[in-house]
């Protein structure tokens, strides 16, 4: 962990050092920083910094019915709230959306956290918004912040193990409320400190610091960061493609991409998603008719499983009320990860959720102690689909309390046997299918202007807060509905529900359909957010022409961006480490911004043809008009068309 953080930091330092040593046009002459807008910086007040820091704590906390991980933790949503706090919700959402794209392949399973999207979102958007950075430059900086954020997570995972032992001590005293308290109070107190303090300091001082640092750098290195902001989204998209870009779903990715480039980015992601849904229906019913193949054996295992369940009839001594079961579900939804730690993972959360059940079913101190200790052991599953385990265990506890011969081993074997497979299905569904698809739609809406055009790399684009709001609403409804259903069905039908749902083929159908929709949306997103613009000119029949404008865009708009995404996907398939790719892309982007072929930009407002053809890649599109055709345009003239056109797909006005 420290190694990867150090490697990233090292690369960044090296690049900036090289940049500082190279003779280049520095910003000393230019008052406005490149990559930074001309508008004055917002100063972040102490109260605003405190609200932002508390927001980041909430993103890691259990207090939002456990939904924070799916909502506030995502840069898209964080961007909206930081924007609200700083008084610019639209701009905040736009920056959050841009930052979120490289995190589309984010997956946290079994206590591992590759990168912290929450930290990247809350701090990255603050720095970008208050420092008036270009959203694309913010992407590069946010990725570094995301790696920094993992320190908080790993520190918490280690320290929270201690609190699990405090819960053990309470269980020894048969103290039900004490176990519940130990699951949330110490862990959350610790989390509040370690998450609030660093984000507060960053929010208060970060924007000025980052802006000053950027102002000291040569102009072209800052352009390099903006170029990297167009290149790095390819990594997030490719990481997500590892989950869904395969088999007969592959063409849909290209359909999504081409749909977006062919319309010059003028259709909204909602339309792409709607077309995707239609195609998913056709795909399921006419292409992949093999999918529900598991359905035919449905009858027999249900009967077999039901027979193996001990049924305690009307003579039950104690029975659980519906309220107990719902209360248990609510406790789990809130507090499953309140004390997440290396030693037990969700172990104390499971015990906490069982407290209403234990309170109802057991009366003697020995029974209570045994039940608490039974459920304080190592446990980890996906906390929504995995709820079938809890439901089943609750039913078993009820039967046991009524005298059925169910021993500790029987309960433990259901927990330890089912938690893995349900996590496998659950993570595949919730983290690597449902969340990225809904996020992609939200990002698409957020990154659009009123006309539906996404302009992530060009300053001045307006974001749409609806993207964040719609995403939050949809993901919350889906996750809560799944969690409640699996919990209740697990209780009512136990193991037979597990085999039945698995055998019905419903999960496979959802995954295949989601694969179609996901590929469409991901392709469209790649067309919008991945930006590779070649800068050099070539002489054809005596006329100087820009490579991108003259050769690539007329043939296949966005071909380079598509190529980059596919290359990244291929590298990941070859098991190249994503962090190595991240570092390499960052370095290459900055080098590619060096003005090899001319004097480069004279100041940050210089959008002339001379300036934009002097490096290997350039950060804005389209280039100004070639000097041969018309007199060099002023900064104002060429900046205007760039503000309303998709950077990846625009057809320059200067086409021969």
């Amino acid at each position, binding site marked *: 962990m420290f*190694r*990867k953080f150090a490697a990233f930091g090292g690369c960044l330092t090296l690049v900036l050092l090289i940049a500082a040593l190279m003779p280049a046009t520095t910003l000393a002459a230019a008052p406005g920083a490149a990559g930074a807008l001309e508008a004055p910086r917002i100063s972040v007040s102490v109260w605003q910094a405190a609200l932002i820091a508390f927001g980041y704590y909430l993103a890691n906390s259990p207090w939002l019915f456990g939904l924070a991980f799916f909502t506030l933790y995502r840069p898209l949503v964080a961007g909206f709230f930081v924007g609200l706090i700083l008084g610019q919700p639209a701009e905040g959402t736009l920056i959050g959306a841009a930052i979120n794209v490289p995190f589309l392949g984010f*997956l946290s*399973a*079994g*206590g*591992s956290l*590759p990168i912290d999207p929450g930290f990247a979102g809350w701090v990255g958007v603050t720095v970008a918004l208050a420092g008036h950075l270009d959203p694309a430059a913010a992407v590069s900086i946010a990725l570094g912040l995301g790696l920094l954020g993992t320190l908080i997570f790993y520190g918490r*995972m280690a320290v929270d*193990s201690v609190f699990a032992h405090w819960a053990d001590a309470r269980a020894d005293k048969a103290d039900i409320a004490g176990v519940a308290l130990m699951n949330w109070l110490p862990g959350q107190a610790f989390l509040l400190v370690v998450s609030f303090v660093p984000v507060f300091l960053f929010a208060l001082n970060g924007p000025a610091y980052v802006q000053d640092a950027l102002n000291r750098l040569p102009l072209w290195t800052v352009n390099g960061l903006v170029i990297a902001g167009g290149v790095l989204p390819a990594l997030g998209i490719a990481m997500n493609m*590892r*989950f869904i870009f395969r088999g007969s779903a592959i063409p849909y990715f290209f359909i999504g991409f081409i749909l977006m480039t062919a319309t010059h980015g003028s259709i909204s992601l909602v339309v792409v998603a709607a077309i995707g849904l239609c195609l998913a229906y056709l795909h399921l019913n006419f292409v992949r008719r093999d*999918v529900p*193949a*598991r359905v035919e054996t449905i009858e027999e*295992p249900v009967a077999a*499983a039901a027979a*193996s369940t001990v049924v305690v009839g009307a003579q039950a001594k104690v029975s659980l009320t519906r309220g107990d079961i719902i209360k248990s579900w609510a406790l789990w939804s809130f507090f499953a990860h309140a004390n997440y730690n*290396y*030693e*037990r*993972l969700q172990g104390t959360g499971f015990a906490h959720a069982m407290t209403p059940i234990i309170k109802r079913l057991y009366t003697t101190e020995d029974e209570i102690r045994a039940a608490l200790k039974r459920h304080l*052991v*190592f446990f*980890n*599953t*996906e906390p929504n689909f995995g709820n079938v385990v809890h439901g089943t265990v609750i039913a078993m506890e009820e039967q046991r309390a009524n005298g059925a011969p169910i021993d500790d081993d029987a309960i433990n*074997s259901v927990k*330890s*046997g*089912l*938690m*893995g*497979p*349900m*996590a*496998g*299905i*659950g*993570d*595949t569904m919730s*983290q*690597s299918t449902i969340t990225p698809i809904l996020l992609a739609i939200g990002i698409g809406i957020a990154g659009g202007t009123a006309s539906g055009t996404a302009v992530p790399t060009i300053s001045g684009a307006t974001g749409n807060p609806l993207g964040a709001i719609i995403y939050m609403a949809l993901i919350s409804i889906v996750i809560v509905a799944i969690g409640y259903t699996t919990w209740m069905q697990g209780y009512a039908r136990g*193991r037979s529900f*597990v*085999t039945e749902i*698995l*055998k019905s083929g419903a999960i*496979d159908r959802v*995954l*295949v359909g989601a694969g179609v929709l996901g590929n469409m949306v991901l392709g469209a997103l790649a067309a919008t957010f991945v930006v590779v613009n070649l800068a050099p000119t070539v002489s054809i029949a005596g006329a100087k022409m820009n490579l991108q404008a003259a050769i690539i865009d007329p043939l296949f708009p966005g071909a380079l961006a598509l190529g980059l995404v596919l290359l990244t996907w291929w590298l*990941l*398939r070859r*098991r190249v*480490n*994503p*962090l190595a790719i991240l570092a390499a892309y960052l370095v290459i982007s900055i080098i590619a911004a060096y003005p090899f072929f001319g004097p480069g930009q004279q100041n940050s407002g210089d959008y002339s043809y001379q300036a934009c053809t002097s490096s290997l890649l350039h950060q804005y599109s389209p280039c100004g008009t070639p000097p041969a055709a018309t007199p060099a345009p002023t900064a104002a003239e060429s900046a205007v068309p760039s503000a309303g056109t998709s950077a990846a797909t625009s057809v320059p006005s200067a086409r021969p």
Partner: protein
Amino acid sequence: MSLRLVRIDDRLIHGQVVAGWLRAIGGRRIVIVDDATARDEFLREVLTLAAPQGVPVEVYDVAAGAARCIELAAKPEPVIVLARSPRTILGLRQAGVPIEVVDLGGMGAGPGRKRIHKTISVSPGEIRELREIERLGTRVEIQIVVDDRPISFASVVSGE
């Protein structure tokens, strides 16, 4: 070598395996070797159904698993082998299964177990078994998720 991943993980099939490893290394078949799981019909069924469609899951005890692994190792199809404990892997290794690297992916904490790295805890007996596996020429590495850098087991238990 078509046994692409031989992993000790007490949760067997779960998110890190299905959503991470399986995709990343292109696994086409999962072989689970565990005596207790092989005896439990319900768990066998759940595990078989928990993998994505098109990835068959086979569950064996150590004796049958060794024979099956030797057979699969000679074929080109990429296979993932999962076991719950080092003892099982030692059994496979002693039965002649060609394992180049064994990956410690998830070994939960408990009484008498010492945490050596993140979610990896081992008992003294397991340390002995893992050392024995190393002595038989198989590297023992810790790599919880596919994007982690592998760490050698020897480097985290040295001096014990």
